[in-house]
């Protein structure tokens, strides 16, 4: 049995009912059940949350920040996607 190669898990905590789970960090564990308990022990000692998700880090597919120009660029030159692009006449205060 190896104790060296525990799996890495990412931990997400929902701080309050109604809010999204937020990434808070990661940890090593043997399996997902253990990961959940560890996450409780290390990330929510001060009632930081009411619900925890753990996900194997290897299961997360992430975009590369170095590629962000080509990856996100198509939306930067479209100011008309924002409401502020359309000035409202001052007579209209309720839109």
């Amino acid at each position, binding site marked *: 049995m190896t104790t060296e190669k525990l799996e890495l898990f990412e931990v997400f905590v*929902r701080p309050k009912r*109604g809010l999204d789970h937020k990434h808070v960090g990661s940890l090593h564990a043997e399996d997902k059940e253990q990961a959940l308990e560890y996450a409780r022990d290390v990330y929510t000692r001060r009632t930081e949350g009411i619900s925890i998700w753990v996900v194997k880090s290897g299961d997360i597919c992430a975009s590369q920040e170095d590629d962000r120009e080509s990856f996100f660029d198509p939306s930067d030159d479209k100011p*008309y*996607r*924002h409401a502020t*692009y359309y000035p*409202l006449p001052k007579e209209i205060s*309720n*839109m």
Partner: protein
Amino acid sequence: MSDHTKLEVEHELEIAFQAKIDDEQKVEPKDWMPEGYRKNLIRQMSQHAHSEVIGMQPEGNWITRAPSLRRKAVLLAKVQDEAGHGLYLYSATETLGISRSQMIEALQTGTAKYASIFNYPTQTWGDMGAIGWLVDGAAICNQVSLQRTSYGPYARGMIRICKEESFHQRQGYQIMIELAHGTPAQKKMAQDSLNRFYWPSLMMFGPHDSDSAHSAKSMKWKIKRETNDDLRQKFIDQTVSQIEYLGLEHPDKALVWNEERNHYDSSDLDWDEFYSVINGNGHCNRQRIQHHIKAHEEGAWVREAMAAYKQKKQLKNATNAA
């Protein structure tokens, strides 16, 4: 467990559930919830998702005919947003245990409804103005209220959607401003679009509270936060000065300010028309669904190609590993 104790347990769960709702706590996918709550949500949320998706058709109809490249880009961006809204809502509905294909099937076979407004044809460029301004405007009224709905994934979806929605109404109103302050022919076009889309926009809020089959339960469970009639009144009130600024005639000749109520009084709607369109007899009901089925079928090869590619990759990985 005997049936009797099972019922008792269920009853206690329901009391605890309602207490949570009354305390303004959100319900999350893995929480216990009454079957009726789940069903009611699936109905409302999938209907909302279908509306976003079917709603792309009347506007998509004008993308190639938009009067300038800028107008085309704006309209395209808006329609693209609506596709995204459909996706957010379908995904959020799936957290309740219904599959995407079940929902699509319900739409295509007519068991699920979508907003009846999208069964009206878009005849002129002015309609793109009226839709953004009035139809998205009415949708925003409703969606702002739903940001406080009791089901967590729906509430969070609404917050995201409302943020994106803000430009839809403004771009529509801008089209209206330009037409209404343009040549007499343009102004006439704006008036005509306003006349045709004003009433069905008011119908978007649904039947009167007294006739709404799901309203009371929805309010008790805080799926809905404001009643159909209250939201409609809000929309009627806010639209008056917007019509005034355009210098157009208000389509409701009976509209009058009521000092006592602090609201406008207005004509009752043509509910026969509302029910007739909802039940499939609007101008475009058949066309909308047929188009959806056609697009879905024409996309089959893409889904098949993706499945084949996935299989091929798995095979390759397996051989590499061996």
